[in-house]
C-alpha cells in the first residue's frame, strides 16, 4: 500500500490504482477530523469505522457513544449494529435510551456527531425521510429520523459523511429531517439549536465546509486526482470553491493497516460502509 497515490479518483468499494478504495479515503479523512479525548456520537457504517480507526491510530482516548446507550465503548472490531453486544461489554457505562438522549446528548455534553444522509442541500440540511414532492405519497420511503435530528441540534459540532452525486447533493432537500444551517445565516440561532452545526461534509470526492459568512457548503479539499469540474458535475447547485483548495492526503500505510485489521476482525463486514 503506497502512501501517495496519484491518478483518477477511486470508485466506492473498488480499489483505485494505489489499492485504496473511495470508502477508505472517506473513512481516513473522517477519522482525521477527530481529536484524541473528544466525545463522539457515532452511527453505524462509515462513521463507526472512522471513529474506531481514529481510536486505533491517533486518538486512543476518543470516547465513543452509541445511541443504544453505550458510553465509552471500546470494541476491538467494527460493531455490526448500534446495539452490538461488544459495545455494551466494553463500555464504561450502559444507560437507557431516554437517558442517552436526555442526559447526555441534549445538554450539549457531546463534542462531535457523525451523520449520514440520503440527500443534503447547499445549507447542509439533511433528508433521510422521503424522496419525492409530497410526504404523503413519496417516491421513495427512506428509514426516517432515528437519532439524527437531535444529534444535528445538540452535538457541539457535526460531521456528515455521504457519497456525492446529483441525486444526493441537491439545491433543496425534499424533506428536512435534520437541520444544518436552515435557510442560511442566523437560522440555527432563530431555531434555538445549541450546537454549531455541520463543520465538514466528507464525500468520496473531497471535503466541503460551510462558508463562515453565507453558511453555504463550499469545496475546500479534493482527493488526489479529483478535479473541481468533476465535483461540480456531481453537485446539484452552483458549487462555490475555496480559493485555497487543499489536496487531501491519502490514507497512510498505518491507517490502511489499522482499518483493514478492524474490518478483518468483523465477521460479515463488507468494509467501511
Amino acid at each position, binding site marked *: 500500500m503506497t502512501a501517495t497515490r496519484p491518478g483518477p479518483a477511486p470508485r466506492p468499494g473498488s480499489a483505485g490504482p494505489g489499492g485504496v478504495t473511495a470508502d477508505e479515503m472517506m473513512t481516513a479523512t473522517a477519522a482525521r477530523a477527530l481529536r484524541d479525548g473528544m466525545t463522539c456520537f457515532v452511527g453505524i457504517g462509515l462513521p463507526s469505522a472512522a471513529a474506531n480507526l481514529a481510536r486505533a491510530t491517533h486518538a486512543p482516548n476518543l470516547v465513543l457513544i452509541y445511541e443504544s446507550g453505550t458510553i465509552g465503548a471500546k470494541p476491538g472490531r467494527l460493531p455490526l*449494529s448500534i446495539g452490538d453486544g461488544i459495545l455494551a461489554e466494553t463500555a464504561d457505562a*450502559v444507560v*437507557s435510551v431516554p437517558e442517552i438522549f*436526555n442526559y447526555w446528548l441534549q445538554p450539549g455534553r457531546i463534542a462531535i456527531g457523525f451523520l449520514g444522509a440520503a440527500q443534503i442541500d447547499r445549507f447542509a440540511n439533511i433528508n433521510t425521510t422521503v424522496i419525492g414532492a409530497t410526504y404523503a405519497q413519496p417516491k421513495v420511503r427512506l428509514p426516517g*429520523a432515528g437519532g439524527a435530528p437531535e444529534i444535528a441540534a445538540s452535538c457541539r459540532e457535526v460531521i456528515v459523511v455521504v457519497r456525492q452525486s446529483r441525486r444526493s447533493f441537491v439545491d433543496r432537500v425534499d424533506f428536512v429531517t435534520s437541520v444544518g444551517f436552515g435557510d442560511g445565516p442566523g437560522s440555527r440561532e432563530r431555531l434555538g439549536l445549541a450546537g454549531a452545526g455541520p463543520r465538514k461534509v466528507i464525500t468520496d470526492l473531497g471535503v466541503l465546509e460551510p462558508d463562515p459568512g453565507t453558511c453555504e457548503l463550499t469545496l475546500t479539499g479534493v482527493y488526489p486526482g479529483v478535479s473541481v469540474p468533476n465535483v461540480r458535475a456531481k453537485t446539484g447547485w452552483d458549487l462555490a470553491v475555496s480559493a485555497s483548495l487543499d489536496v487531501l492526503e491519502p490514507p497512510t500505510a498505518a491507517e490502511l493497516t489499522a482499518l483493514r485489521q478492524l474490518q478483518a476482525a468483523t465477521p460479515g463486514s463488507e468494509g467501511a460502509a
Partner: protein
Amino acid sequence: MAEIVSLADAIERAVHNGDSVAMEGFTHLIPFAAGREVIRQRRRGLTLIRMTPDVIYDQLIGAGCASKLIFGWGGNPGVGSLHRFRDAVENAWPGPLQLEEHSHAGMANRYVAGASGVPFAILRGYSGTGLEGLTGLSGHPAIQPITCPFTGERLTAVAALNPDVAVIHAQRADRAGNVQLWGITGVQKEAVLSAERSVVTVEEIVDELDARPGAVVLPSWVVDYVAEVPGGAHPSYALGYSARDNDYYQAWDVISRDRERFGRWLAEEVFGSGAGSLAGAGAAEGGNA
C-alpha cells in the same frame, strides 16, 4: 401479579384486534417470537408502536396485521431498506399503513411521559425540521411548540404514549414473574410502565434472580404475562444467552424484497409449524398479490 403462561396464551389474552401494541428492544432483546405469534393468531388493525420498526415489524406489516405505525426509524440495521414497510407506504400493500413519525428522542420521551402518568413530554428538538409540521394519527400535529412557564424559552412538546399492550423479551424471570434484563436495555422499562397490559418473553425461568450489573428489574406486579421462550429474540440476541444472527438480517433483505418470496416465508416459517390449516391461507395471501 404476572401469570406464567405459554406464548400462545399470552398473545391470545393480551393482544386483540385493533389494539395499539409496542414491541420494544433496541437491537438487543427484540421480541421476535412474540411478533410471529401475533401473525400466527392473525391479529388485524393493530397500531404498531416502536422506536425502530426493523425486521420484526416488517414481518407484521407484510403479514397484514397493522393499519397504523408510530415510529422513529424504519430500516434493516446495517443492511438497508425494510421492503415490506416500503411496499405498504409506497403501494399500500397488503393494505394502507398510516404513519405517525417521530425522532428516536421524541419516541423515547413519549414513553417516559406515558410511564410517568403525564400527558406530554418536553424536549429540545424538532425545531426547523419537517417533522414539526406532520399530522399525527389523531389528525392533529403530533409535535407542538411549548413555552417554558419559568424562562419563556421555546421548547417542543410530544404527546405521551400509552399503548394498550407492551411486549418485550428479557433474559430471565423468577417463578413469581419478576423480570430481569441487562446489557442494552433500551426503552423497555418505559414501554412496559406506559402500557395498559404487558407480555414478557424470557430466555429462562429461574428459582432466584441473582444480581447482575446494570440490570433492570420489573416487579411481577407491573407485568401481566410471562412466557418462557428460549431464543425468543432470534435473530436479535440476548446478552449472555445468544449472539445476533447477522446472516438472517442479510437474508431478510432477499426474502422481503418480493411479495411472493415473502408469502412463502410466511407459509413455511410462521404458519407452517404447529398452525396446520392456517398455512394454506397464509401462502395464498402472500402469493396471489
